[in-house]
């Protein structure tokens, strides 16, 4: 309870135009897949996945898309922001051969996950995709980890040409993976689900969040009513298969259904 802490920004890294990583010196009790709520008290409090977390610091990686993130992008080192969390479910930590599939601003959560999986001696293959080279991020950081990395862009300007799903499909046909993790646009995950076959998997979902503590109901997913801020954002195959709204619609800040 009362998990809010106000911190000054310790480090800001521009990953590419429109994506920045913010680092805070604070021992955050967090697991891979979990998120924090961040505010500057100027209007808006938003969820961001934890992209790295060590003994004494943690990071989030943010894409500038609207009013709130634009304001966050104007912050400088030593500016204060207020954070609560970590919240939500976390990824299963396998010790076997695993495939990580992700793209865009949703990939950095796999950096934190990879580090923990490596500690557990998992054999990791990562597909890191983006539309273009300019939008591709974290390639250098993943390169430094002891994992197999396949970079991909839709236009072929960096790594393999094609979508992460196409690359994943080939890999799944050729190799035997015990577990698959996905984080990225919902329609990407929807098509990815079709090529997963018998493999067990977990996907990281996004829904509009307000309270992040499971009471307002804004983030529930049909038909089970799972609250993505408590039972999610990471959901296992068993539950994903029951979701009727996956890839079809989500709810906005008023609770109104918005089609994908």
């Amino acid at each position, binding site marked *: 309870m009362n998990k809010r802490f106000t911190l000054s920004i310790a480090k800001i890294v521009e990953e590419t135009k429109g994506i920045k990583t913010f680092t805070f010196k604070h021992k955050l009790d967090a697991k891979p897949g979990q998120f924090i709520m961040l505010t500057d008290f100027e209007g808006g409090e938003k969820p961001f996945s934890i992209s790295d977390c060590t003994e004494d610091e943690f990071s989030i990686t943010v894409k500038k898309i609207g009013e709130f993130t634009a304001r966050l992008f104007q912050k400088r080192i030593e500016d204060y922001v207020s954070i609560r969390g970590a919240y939500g479910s976390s990824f299963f930590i396998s010790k076997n051969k695993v495939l990580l599939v992700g793209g865009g601003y949703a990939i950095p959560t796999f950096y934190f996950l990879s580090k923990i999986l490596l500690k557990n001696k998992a054999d990791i293959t990562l597909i890191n995709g983006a539309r273009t080279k300019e939008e591709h991020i974290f390639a250098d950081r993943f390169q430094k980890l002891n994992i197999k990395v396949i970079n991909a862009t839709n236009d072929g300007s960096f790594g393999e040409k094609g979508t992460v799903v196409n690359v994943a499909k080939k890999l799944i046909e050729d190799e035997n993976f015990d577990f698959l993790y996905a984080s990225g646009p919902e329609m990407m995950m929807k098509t990815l689900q079709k090529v997963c076959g018998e493999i067990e998997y977990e996907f990281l979902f996004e829904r509009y969040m307000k309270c992040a503590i*499971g009471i307002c109901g804004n983030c529930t997913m049909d*038909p089970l*009513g799972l609250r993505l801020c408590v039972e999610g954002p990471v959901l296992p195959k068993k539950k994903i298969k029951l979701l009727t709204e996956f890839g079809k619609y989500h709810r906005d800040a008023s609770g109104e259904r918005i089609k994908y």
Partner: protein
Amino acid sequence: MSDKLKTKFLGKTIKSPLVLPAGIMDMSFSGLNYAVQNGAGIVTSKSLTLEPRMGHKGPVVAEFEGGLLNCMGLCNPGIEDGLAEINQFKKHSDIPVIVSVFATNILDFLKLTKYVNKSKADFLELNLSCPNVFDEFGIPLSASKEKVGEIISAVKKISKLPIIAKLSPNVYDISEIALSAESAGADALCLINTVGPGMLIDTKMVKPVLFNKFGGLSGPCIKPIALKLIYQTYSAVNIPIIGMGGVKSGEDAVEMLMAGATVIGVGTAVYCRGIEVFNKINDEITKFMKEENYKKLSEIPKLKKL
């Protein structure tokens, strides 16, 4: 669930006396389902307005030792979409549903009532007491016994469903307002809505924690206030009461019953003890009844009226 918990509320038989209150996990049909799966006996919709509302900007909740502050700002998908969620819930469930509606004048309440008449809802709750839209709408309607009376009489004339009036704790004399609601035709009362409002301050950034600055207080810290107001109301009226405010355990729920409630709302405790809270409280009430040798919920005694 123990059969002992079975009871009646406004003519409907319910499996558990626990109510999911307005504003808790109720933006979608599936949220209501989830509460029922976990042991709620009646569910309430989010307070619905004629048009969709996005609600206030965040932070909209603040956690603290005593419970929560919230200023959601009546976010809801609007009466039409909101009722579509209710109808979808009713397709697969016979659990009674209370539809909560919010407006600031008689005309809008009447419009909302007409929509609800055409839905599969069981009860109509008039939210006369939201404390979190002060800037927009001013003090809650339930601060005035005259306004409470006028709105309820008008709605009563056209509503096909029994009417529940949701009252604010932030008044000088609750019994006078409760009496006005009863004589205007309310079939039941629901209290209390959130207390205050109150505020919290971030000391590093020197800012109110809630973007709206002020928010309604809920959770364990408001239970003594809720008990007192429910007891005063129970002493004044003869219609059933949905008692809520800080209920977190079976013991709290029994206190509510003794203060005069017929059924009990469990809201903020979903945050304090998780979604399992409904089943836990059901079990705790059952255990209490066994220990004290009460065979039916209705055997649990009420306090002597004031």
